[in-house]
């Protein structure tokens, strides 16, 4: 009988397929994975601690840098949590624009996912196409917020400003052209033998185990759990839109791939409906205690200037209490647990990052697989280290 020896291999933190600075210590029996131990924290910036020393508005730019592939989803979760604490209503136009931007963010994040996931397991062409499309979304980001990635566009009570002229046309362009582009990706992958062999039966996790491991988002839906926060606990007026929640059957990487592709198509549908229902109106709540005054007041009146200065420097007091608000971010349930002591800074802000919780399941999903399949499992979990390490 051949004797085998367990070998311990270090993968990462500098490794192109670990999507950032993830380090995996892999115990191998030949090519077969016996155990995976993730080591994280290389990108820890102490966002939760920092937020305790900043006003509520000053924390918004920190949230951009959590899941840097989906900044506006992070912004959205955070401002919704603060608004819930304050108990303020957001004007309809602001809500609709938030939905449009959040869904564009989903597209942007899923485009990076499909690009890198395919590149990791040997299909390079998709990468180039998906990044071309992502650029279009980035241009829209730049158009509304001035930044391609760190958007900082939402404010407590609404938006930092209304969208510029040409926004509607640019979004329409995306709505009109993207479904064809998705057909291209499917044409490149869905019947591609190599793709099928690398993804079918890979990274299987049953629905029960997935819930036990706290997996959320497309990774959970790929295991057949029909649950989407946008539909089941709607926020920002998601209940007004008609969209399907795709669910997988076989709990493997291929099903998660199909789920995310349908999600992209559904996102385009939501954007289209939101765009059709977009009406003129204010984009910031009428809450002078909390919201910044209009810029023309700031520049032309002393009261407006003082008002702006007060909110920018001191912030605003928030009633004592605690809330948990979560959104369906592209990667899963992104939650913010905010505790206020009645002051102008959060007493405690806890971020519940989807990637952190999802990554934990890698120990189970990769066990018994080949070492080459490990990168497929990382890709299918769609992690981003900025959010894991915070």
């Amino acid at each position, binding site marked *: 009988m051949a004797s085998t020896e367990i070998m311990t291999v270090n993968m990462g933190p500098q490794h192109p397929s670990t999507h950032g600075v993830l380090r995996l210590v892999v115990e191998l029996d030949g090519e077969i994975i016996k155990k995976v131990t993730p080591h994280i924290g290389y990108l820890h910036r102490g966002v939760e601690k920092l937020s305790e020393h900043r006003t509520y508005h000053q924390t918004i730019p920190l949230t951009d840098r959590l899941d840097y592939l989906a900044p506006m989803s992070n912004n959205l979760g955070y401002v919704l949590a603060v608004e819930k604490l304050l108990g303020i209503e957001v004007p309809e136009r602001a809500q609709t624009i938030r939905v449009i931007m959040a869904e564009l963010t989903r597209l942007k994040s899923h485009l990076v996912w499909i690009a890198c996931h395919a590149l990791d397991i040997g299909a390079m062409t998709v990468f180039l196409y998906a990044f071309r499309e992502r650029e279009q979304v980035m241009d829209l980001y730049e158009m509304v917020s001035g930044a391609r990635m760190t958007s900082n566009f939402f404010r407590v009570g609404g938006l930092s400003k209304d969208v510029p002229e040409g926004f509607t046309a640019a979004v329409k362009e995306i709505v009109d052209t993207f479904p064809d582009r998705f057909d291209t990706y499917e044409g490149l992958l869905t019947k591609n033998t190599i793709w099928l062999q690398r993804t079918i039966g890979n990274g299987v996790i049953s629905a029960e185990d997935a819930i036990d491991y706290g997996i959320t988002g497309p990774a959970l839906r790929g295991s057949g759990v029909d649950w989407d926060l946008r539909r089941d606990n709607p926020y920002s007026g998601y209940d007004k839109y008609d969209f399907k929640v795709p669910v997988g059957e076989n709990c493997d990487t291929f099903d998660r791939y199909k789920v995310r592709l349908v999600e992209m198509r559904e996102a385009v549908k939501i954007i289209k409906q939101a765009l059709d229902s977009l009406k003129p109106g204010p984009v910031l709540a009428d809450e002078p205690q909390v919201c910044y005054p209009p810029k023309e007041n700031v520049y032309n009146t002393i009261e407006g200037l003082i008002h702006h200065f007060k909110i920018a420097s001191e912030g605003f007091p928030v009633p004592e209490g605690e809330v948990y608000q979560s959104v369906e971010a592209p990667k899963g349930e992104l*939650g913010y647990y905010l505790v206020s002591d009645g002051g102008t800074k959060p007493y405690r802000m806890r971020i519940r990052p989807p990637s952190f919780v999802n990554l*934990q399941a890698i120990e189970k999903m990769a066990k018994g697989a080949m070492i080459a399949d490990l990168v497929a499992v990382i890709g299918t979990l769609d992690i981003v280290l900025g959010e894991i390490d915070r």
Partner: protein
Amino acid sequence: MADMAENNRALIRLQEKFAPSILDIKEFRGEVTITVKKEDNVAVCKFLKEELRYNLLTDVTAVDYLGTDPRFMVVYNLYSIPNKDRIRIKAPVAESDCSIESVCSLWSTANWLERETYDLMGIVFNNHPDLRRILMTDDWVGHPLRKDYPLQGPDREPYKGRLS
């Protein structure tokens, strides 16, 4: 708001079964928060998971109320996928006996979440399968999210706010 809390089915069942261990019930912005004695955290979570279908443990974290006794609050955010409903369980932990029973036996996801709470808040989870630091390095001293841990690190001048 009080009516809502009283109508909450889960709450009624919990009150029936765990009346002596419930310390406080709060309703704020439509969210129910139940504070229980820390000795009963696993029993309460088990009951919620198995009898009331709160099958997803969304989050485990802690809050440091420096200057009060007990100092820490361990917070469990639970979600019920069948009922689309949330509930929050809190358990006070004193600084002198800074430990609480782990809920890893109920949910595997608690493993990393509790490790993070241990790492950043310094709360020990008893019977945790692998209680190591997770975000900070293994040789780190102190627990950064505690309120008495200076923002700029232990060896530097305390943060006094922005100078500009």
